């Protein structure tokens, strides 16, 4: 368990930033709506940020204390195939991918 004051500081920072991101736009609705910069960022950011997060979490699963590169690759492929093949039901695809990874890591 990391240091209590560190956890508290991290929680406080994440709280302030998350709530601000939700609250400030209600105060600045008009200028934000008219800003091309904000609209461009809104359009471009999500897919790219999510790819970076997917790559980061893949890296920590694949290269943790023990290397599980092929297991992570197989589980990612299963996640993608189930997601695209079974109607994009997130719960199903995440469940299938995680089950495959946990099984491969623990049993193989």
């Amino acid at each position, binding site marked *: 368990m990391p240091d209590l004051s560190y956890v508290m500081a991290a929680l406080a920072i994440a709280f302030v930033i998350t709530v601000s991101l939700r609250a400030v736009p209600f105060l600045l609705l008009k200028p934000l709506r008219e800003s091309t910069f904000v609209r461009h960022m809104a359009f471009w950011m999500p897919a790219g940020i999510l790819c970076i997060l*997917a790559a980061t979490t893949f890296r920590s699963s694949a290269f943790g204390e023990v290397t599980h590169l092929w297991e992570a690759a197989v589980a990612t492929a299963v996640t993608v195939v189930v997601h695209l093949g079974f109607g994009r039901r997130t719960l199903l695809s995440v469940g299938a991918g995680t089950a495959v990874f946990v099984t491969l890591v623990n049993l193989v």
Partner: protein
Amino acid sequence: MNESSVVEHPVARRSEVRAGVRASLAAGLGLFPLGVAFGLLVINSGLSWWVAPALSVAVFAGSMELLLVGLLVAATPLATIALTTLLVNFRHVFYAFSFPLQVVRHPVARAYSVYALIDEAWAITNARPQGWTSWRLVSMQLALQGYWLVGGLVGVVAARLINRPIEGLGFALCALFVTLALDAFRSRRQVPPVVLAGLSFTVAVVVAPGSALFVALLLFVGALVAFHLLSGRSDARA
């Protein structure tokens, strides 16, 4: 004023609360199991049980909470946590444009409604934009937070009962981001940002393997700003 005085009637209020909870149920089917996975992950990562409810109250945003578990365990610098939160939750900036906050008048209820403006709450109100009242909206949001909080506590208890860590459970987070990325790419088929993200991550892993997430996010946003400036200039010329 007239509309809200109708809702103040106790029978009307009860039916509004019921309508709010009913609107939340479908999303609850997804939130509850993910909450259980979150609770399991908190215990399996070696954090105290109270971190699960504390995260769900302080940072009510599912994917960010899952991500924070990993960041906390790795003792990630607070600056990285701040930048990651800012970028991961940046999408919330655009929810204000189409969220029926105007129906909520009581200042405490209004503050709660803004605080609890998660993806699912926004999606529910946008799937059916008509008929929202203060009681319906706030009870829907409270129900969503309830599913998530209780799911997290169930996960914490389950992890204690199983009594030994399940190795590899953290992969759920990778799988979640893979599916979210696929969905985001489907709704806006933008190849350049995905290529820029891939390049940013690759460069970051080579240049700064210890803080790849932070560097990759900075490079990516920097590239997007440059992209914006260039496209803005060509817009102006056209």
